[in-house]
């Protein structure tokens, strides 16, 4: 039963596909967006996609562990957001730009 | 199916009552502030300006909704409705009283009894900031932008002490469902001290109650924390550019938030719909007596009126009050109406405190505001939480 809707129920794989789609969207945004803030948001999007799989599997296995991991992911995401936005502020302060293509001191 | 019908009926009732209450809350506010400042307040439209809210609504609706040319239209239009939506949605999980049985159908005085109701309220209220922030930003006006920034910063900052203050009574209650929280506070210690959270063993939550109220003032952008709309620095803060119904929406949101936080405070700290002293000591007679006194006062003033209209209007109100008193005293409805009365009484009292403080206190400076949140309120809340947890652990 590859993905055919079962009456009164959702195959677990559909959640995985949804999260895969969201993750891919995040990756795409990460690649094609130039605004550093948007790029950052795309990272959050990816994290959310991963969380969905955790929750889905938690439901699948009837265990809380997956939700715990989601919890940790959230915590880490919050910390990351705080630091990342601070970095973005500093970058903007120093360079007057949010375009990551212009943040290329690594090169030469 | 019955469930849906009942829910829809409840929805209609609550929506109607709530919106009316919001409208009249403003009337009350203006009246109270007026009397605090020895003024009349609204008195032209209707007796004692009782129809003022109606007039306001008509005025606001019929006004031309000006959309400034330089705004980001989508967000500019979306913001107020986002705000009011977020404000109203959290009412849905608040219980007003015990079950009510009507025509054989038993239902709770509550729209949705969620078992994480408190978290839902926190979540929704945390979303509430977007309305203001977006409105401030979309108006594309430096004053409103500053207002939006301030409000978002302020709301984020004050959400911490708020949540921490909520957490410590939860340690005692041990549940997140608002209904269970309220029921956990029924009964009395030593026979007459109510088991409300602010009196509760092992550690009276009076501190967290105060913290919660202070933070609530900030969350609802009320004086003394109404920095986002500080008239004398930012013309009108985040809603400089708003007019007509969109402007009204922000105010509705503010009042709805007030109602919400007052209800939450009542449920968590003031024991919900449980009376102040046992029924044995006649707490059931409070409502009739109060209403009866109100009616008597009305009659008295009607008999020797201060204004010509009074001799017709006041007695009418007097009669209404008497009827209500009689209804309250009517035994069959007591179990239904008495909790409702107590709940509304407490909420009303807290709302009155809100208005009272607005009439009394000046406004903080912004750095004072933030410093207060982070340097005083937050540590105190943490300390309170720690002490409570410690004592609870000891008690159990």
């Amino acid at each position, binding site marked *: 039963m590859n993905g055919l809707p079962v009456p009164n129920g959702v195959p677990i794989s559909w959640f995985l596909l949804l999260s895969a789609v969201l993750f891919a969207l995040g990756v795409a945004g990460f690649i094609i967006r130039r605004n550093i803030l948007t790029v950052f948001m795309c990272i959050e999007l990816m994290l959310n996609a991963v969380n969905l799989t955790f929750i889905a599997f938690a439901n699948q296995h009837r265990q809380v562990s997956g939700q715990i991991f989601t919890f940790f992911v959230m915590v880490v995401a919050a910390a990351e957001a705080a630091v990342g936005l601070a970095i973005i502020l500093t970058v903007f302060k120093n360079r007057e730009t949010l375009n990551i*293509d212009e943040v*290329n001191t690594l*090169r030469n | 199916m019955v469930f849906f019908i009942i829910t829809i009926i409840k929805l209609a009732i609550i929506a109607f009552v709530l919106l009316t209450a919001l409208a009249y809350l403003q009337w009350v506010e203006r009246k109270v502030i007026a009397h605090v400042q020895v003024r009349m307040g609204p008195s032209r439209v209707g007796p004692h300006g009782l129809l003022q809210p109606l007039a306001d609504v008509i005025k606001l609706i019929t006004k031309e909704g000006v959309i400034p040319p330089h705004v980001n239209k989508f967000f500019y239009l979306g913001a107020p409705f986002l705000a009011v939506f977020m404000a109203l949605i959290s009412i849905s999980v608040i219980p007003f009283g015990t079950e009510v049985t009507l025509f054989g159908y038993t239902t709770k005085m509550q729209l949705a009894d969620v078992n994480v109701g408190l978290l839902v309220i926190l979540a929704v209220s945390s979303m509430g900031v977007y309305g203001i922030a977006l409105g401030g930003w979309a108006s594309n006006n430096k004053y409103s932008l500053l207002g939006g920034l301030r409000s978002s910063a302020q709301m984020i900052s004050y959400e911490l002490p708020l949540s921490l203050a909520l957490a410590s009574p939860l340690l005692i209650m041990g549940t997140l469902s608002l209904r269970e929280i309220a029921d956990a506070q029924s009964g009395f210690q030593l026979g007459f001290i109510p088991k409300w959270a602010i009196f509760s063993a092992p550690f009276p939550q009076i501190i967290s109650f105060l913290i919660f109220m202070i933070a609530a003032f900030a969350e609802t952008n009320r004086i003394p924390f109404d920095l986002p709309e500080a008239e004398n620095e930012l013309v009108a803060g985040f809603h400089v550019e708003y007019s007509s119904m969109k402007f009204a929406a922000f105010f509705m949101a503010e009042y709805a938030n007030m109602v919400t936080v007052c209800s939450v405070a009542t449920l968590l700290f003031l024991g919900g719909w449980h009376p102040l002293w046992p029924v044995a000591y006649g707490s059931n007679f409070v409502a009739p007596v109060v209403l009866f006194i109100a009616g008597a006062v009305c009659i008295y003033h009607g008999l020797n009126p201060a204004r010509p209209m009074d001799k017709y209007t006041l007695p009418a109100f007097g009669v209404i009050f008497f009827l209500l008193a009689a209804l309250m005293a009517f035994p069959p409805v007591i179990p239904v109406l008495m909790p409702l009365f107590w709940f509304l009484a407490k909420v009303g009292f807290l709302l009155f405190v809100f208005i009272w403080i607005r009439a009394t206190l000046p406004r903080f400076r912004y750095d004072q505001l933030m410093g207060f949140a982070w340097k005083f309120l937050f540590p105190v809340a943490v300390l309170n939480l720690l002490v409570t947890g410690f004592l609870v652990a000891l008690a159990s």
Partner: protein
Amino acid sequence: MTQNLWIIPILPFLGFLVNGIFGRKLPKMIVSLVAVVSVLLSFGWVMKVYLTAGDLAANPVTEHYFTWIRSGAFNVGWDYTVDKLTMIMLMIVTGIGSLIHIYSVGYMEHEGGYYRFFAYLNLFMFFMLNLVLAANYLLLFLGWEGVGLCSYLLVGFYIVKHSATTAGNKAFIVNRIGDFGFSLAMFLIVVNFGTLDFGHVFAAAPGRPTGTLTAIALLLLLGATGKSAQIPLYVWLPDAMEGPTPVSALIHAATMVTAGVYMCTRSAVIFTHAPAAMETVAIIGLVTAAFAATIGLAQNDIKKVYAYSTISQLGYMFLGVGVGAFSAGIWHLMTHAFFKALLFLGAGSVIHACHGEQDMRHMGGLRKYAPITFYTLCCASLAIAGIPPFAGFWSKDAILAASYAHAPWMYWIGTITAGMTAFYVWRAMFMTFFGEYRGHGHPHESPVSMWGPLAVLAALSVVGGFLFNVPKILNSMFPIEEAAEVPWLVYVSVLAGVLGIGLAAYMYVVNLDLPERITKAIGGLYTLVYNKYFIDEVYDATVVHPLVEGSRSVLWRGVDQGFIDGIVNGVGQESKAVGGVLRLMQSGNIRSYATWVVLGSVALVIALGIAGGVSR
């Protein structure tokens, strides 16, 4: 019931932490208080254990705290054990340690690095107690190395003095040789017994081939000679006198240097089953005793004299161990701890009195300036000279008797050595306290915090001998083999001591020019002895110099610069070349990096899929 033995070493360690971390800030008062009190407390705890433990011989206390190392079948626990031997050592270490701590408060008062000194001292106490309490060789080795470290730190305490630092290095390096032997011994033990716990090893030892046991014992002996300054590794001890005098007293007389004796006694089972090794121990001890005594005859630096006497006394102990009289050796260890600590502290007091002068030729006549020091030192010197009923007499006599039973010639050499000992110790006494004061400045008596411990130690070195009759105490562990009781032995050895004293008195009090003439008469011999038989020079020429030269020419120039640097630079060159290519990928554009990551992950997922998924 548990005795909480861990408290004993942990207290000084806490003292070390406090003084080491905050000492710089704290006032001297607090520092000394912390140091002294911590040691006193642990002494108190030792007493508590002693009083409450019951019969240690029947059931020694053993406590396991946690497993330190576990690898396969082999695991080493952090366990302490206390039996009678350990208890004696504990009392010596903590008791004398406390006294010396108190003494140091007065002695170090005007020195820089006050807190540093006490921190090191406490650390030393911790390691020493660890060494004594250890229930397996590795833990013992930990303490062993630790005390070595502390000795290094304290010998080099006057970091500005070049001689001090070099002395510290010398002590450390020479000890390395011994420790090398010790570790080899431990490896052998692990290989043969599969464990390092004393209990199992000693239980299994008797059944093992003698060859193995001999090898182990000899290697252990090598370690012991290093730590306990026996031939051939004794050379570091005299130089170690560069350290502050309390350190010399505590570490280089009373406790650390006796660790070797303790270890051999602890391993008695192994030694007794390796007769050859026992013989070696005895001979090494005897030769060291005589040899060091001869050197001691001609020294003029008071601390050097006592240093050599320490070496020779340690020789006695090893003699005792070697001839199988372990308990006698421990007995002498104890009495020696009393009187030698006293001698050093007295010497310190003398030096203190003479404003830091150490050369005896610039002293003299201190009897009236520092009476207390004088009388206490008298006790000590009588004790070391083996005059009854002083402490030294009993233990030394026991050893000599045992050695006579073992081999008479050993007894005679020992006795002659005893005579020499008496001579040079009293020579020191006479040169220091009699005659006229030949130094500069005005000598003065030391403060009470210094002579207080002196008095206690003096009392101990008077009565300590027959009060604590170690052989009887340890009878259960090391039964005294009933040697034929030869009555005249005692008189001879005592006579030797008396003769030595008398000779010293004659030469250095009665007619003072006699030494000069003797020196003239036997000029060559004298210079030889005076320069310690040029042993240091010999070592330099044979060991140190070739080593340095070899490492400079071969290791440094050849191996290091030629080979290793070659590899390193080669790697550097290669990576630079590779990087030059890879650099083209680093566009400095974040999104291109992201693209690479994506491609990589795609490849990974495909690979996983082809591999058939992570798990079914």
